[in-house]
């Protein structure tokens, strides 16, 4: 080994053995707008943030509901307005994936969770923003469902696409699809 190579190897070894001080990262796709799955997503997200991780949540399709303000009106075309009417409201309108019973399930689960003192979905979302979780809407599904950025709560970052998510996911130690 020539001195040059030896020096280069030393450098490589120094880099390889250097402790990685970068924050660990978790990236999530949140496609579901179901109450129970949103609970899962936000509990994992806020828990990871508390544990010192950098958290990215990418909301797409039904998951966009989680970002909407309660009073948001969405839709510009006939179909978009219909969708806004039928699937309107913010995160507090999310119903469980099972035992929905046309809204009864939401009420029942709300009661049960309240009795056990679990944080509500709006509280968890506010906490997520407070903890600095990076929340993004998917531009494509926002366009399709006619849900503009203005209908989201404060703290949601500007919309992104799949390329952005993949770049985040590549740097993440944990990735989830919910």
């Amino acid at each position: 080994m020539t001195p040059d190579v030896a020096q280069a190897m030393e450098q490589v070894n120094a880099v390889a053995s250097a402790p990685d001080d970068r924050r660990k990262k978790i990236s999530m796709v949140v496609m579901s707008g179901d109450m129970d799955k949103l609970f899962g997503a936000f509990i994992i997200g806020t828990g990871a943030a508390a544990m010192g991780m950098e958290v990215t949540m990418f909301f797409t399709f039904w998951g966009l509901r989680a970002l909407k303000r309660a009073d948001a009106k969405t839709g510009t075309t006939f179909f978009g307005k219909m969708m806004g009417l039928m699937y309107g409201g913010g995160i507090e309108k999310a119903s469980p994936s099972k035992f929905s019973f046309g809204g009864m399930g939401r009420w029942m689960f709300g009661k049960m969770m309240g009795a056990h003192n679990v944080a509500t979905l709006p509280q968890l979302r506010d906490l997520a923003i407070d903890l600095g979780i990076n929340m993004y809407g998917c531009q494509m599904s926002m366009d399709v469902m006619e849900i503009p950025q203005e209908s989201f709560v404060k703290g949601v970052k500007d919309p992104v696409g799949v390329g952005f998510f993949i770049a985040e996911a590549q740097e993440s130690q944990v990735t989830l699809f919910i």
Partner: protein
Amino acid sequence: MSDTKPDLELDLRGLLCPMPMVKVSQNISKVPVGGTVRAVATDAGSMADIPAWAKSTGNEVVQAEKVGSEYVFLVKRVK
């Protein structure tokens, strides 16, 4: 049992996952490095979560024990 008086007391009774861990995480920076937080929770899951949080964030659980129906933690801020 540790005899040292904690720098901060946290009442986490009644809170469920993930709140006990989140509260410890939000409050640890209120004590100086080397200082301690004493937290009392009723969530049995926190017995696993708070030590895991400490390991992940580089802090130290000095004490974690079940006292009656409660879980008492003494957490030391390491950095």
